[in-house]
């Protein structure tokens, strides 16, 4: 198989684009897809101060790498969840990337350690407050990324969600008719109220396989092991189903998710609608001031409960 562009030996075939690329042309393709995503969704300008949410996985490290190579000012935040050896390994991967790649671009890594603040790792914390681990993890990560973005005055927060993540989430929302979540499925969510950072997903045009290939080809050392808490999750099941469809019918995932985005954009200016809805229901948490629909936000409630029931 030869590269569609330069005719040298290809390293990856992309059936959904009816193309194959060598390393150089593939890197060009990936960078171009991210640049198109940023421009088409009005994510941020060339001078923006960006905070990338990194986990040690392929997507977030690839995103940080791509943004730095495209010339953006991108720092990162890593949340150490305290999941034993898994967190130790992922932390080490992020530190290595920072030292070997990001530092040369003048980028900084922020670190938040759950155990230091909550007195326990994510698994123990979830048990203490009787909530599923993945839900507790989501609440903590969303809260901490937003907190750092606001406190350190970043213009925008970028996450490594890719085409597979978004297509799987859309499938889950449609299967359960969770229409209220559909407004927030876009790749660019505005800072709808004071206290909320703008959130963007610059990788939404790239598949999980393409991002893994980018990481391998560019020697990005990421954590291949799956999070032990995510085993058997619904999201993984949806991804497996979509990948079987994609293999039989290339382009299925992008047709599904991009088609949804196209319909949403034609429906109404989604961003305005979402911002209006947010402004109507959100106000500052009485404890920490981050926006919430309740008097006290779910993060503060969770921390308060953990402190009440934690063994002394």
């Amino acid at each position, binding site marked *: 198989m030869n590269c569609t562009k330069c005719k040298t030996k290809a390293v*990856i075939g992309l059936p959904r684009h009816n193309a194959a690329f060598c390393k150089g042309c593939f890197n060009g393709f990936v960078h171009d897809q991210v640049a198109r995503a940023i421009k088409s969704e009005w994510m941020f300008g060339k001078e923006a101060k960006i905070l990338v949410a990194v986990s040690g996985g*392929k997507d977030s490290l690839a995103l940080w790498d791509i943004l730095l190579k495209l010339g953006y000012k991108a720092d990162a935040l890593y949340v150490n969840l305290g999941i034993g050896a898994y967190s130790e390994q992922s932390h080490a991967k992020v530190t290595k990337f920072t030292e070997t790649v990001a530092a040369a671009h003048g980028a900084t890594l922020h670190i938040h350690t759950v155990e230091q603040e909550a007195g326990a790792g994510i698994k123990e914390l979830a048990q203490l407050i009787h909530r599923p681990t993945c839900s507790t*993890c989501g609440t903590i990560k969303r809260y901490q990324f937003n907190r750092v973005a606001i406190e350190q005055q970043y213009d925008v927060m970028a996450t490594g969600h890719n085409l597979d993540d978004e297509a799987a989430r859309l499938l889950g929302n449609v299967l359960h008719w969770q229409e209220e979540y559909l407004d927030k499925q876009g790749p660019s969510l505005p800072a709808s109220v004071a206290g909320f950072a703008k959130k963007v997903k610059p990788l939404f045009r790239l598949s999980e396989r393409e*991002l893994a290939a980018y990481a391998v080809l560019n020697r990005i050392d990421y954590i291949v092991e799956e*999070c032990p808490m995510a085993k058997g999750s619904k999201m993984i099941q949806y991804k497996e189903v979509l990948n079987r469809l994609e293999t039989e019918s290339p382009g299925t995932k992008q047709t599904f998710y991009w088609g949804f985005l196209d319909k949403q954009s034609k429906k109404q200016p989604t961003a305005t609608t979402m911002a209006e809805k947010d402004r109507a229901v959100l106000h500052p948490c009485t404890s920490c001031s981050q926006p919430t629909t309740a008097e006290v936000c779910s993060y503060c409630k969770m921390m308060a409960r953990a402190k009440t029931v934690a063994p002394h």
Partner: protein
Amino acid sequence: MQVQLSHPSRTVEVKGPKKVKDLLRELNLVVEAHLVIKGDDLVTEDEMLYEGDQIEVRPVISGG
């Protein structure tokens, strides 16, 4: 040839020569969810793999 697999981490012996796409089919793995790495190099589905090659089949799905 030795084929390294993940989730869980293990090595299996597969008889070569064989194309990448046939290796994945034999292992009952979906192309869209995996990368195949020969030595240090990423290879396409039509690449021929031979006895003695060090192969890693790396899953790409992540996230909960």
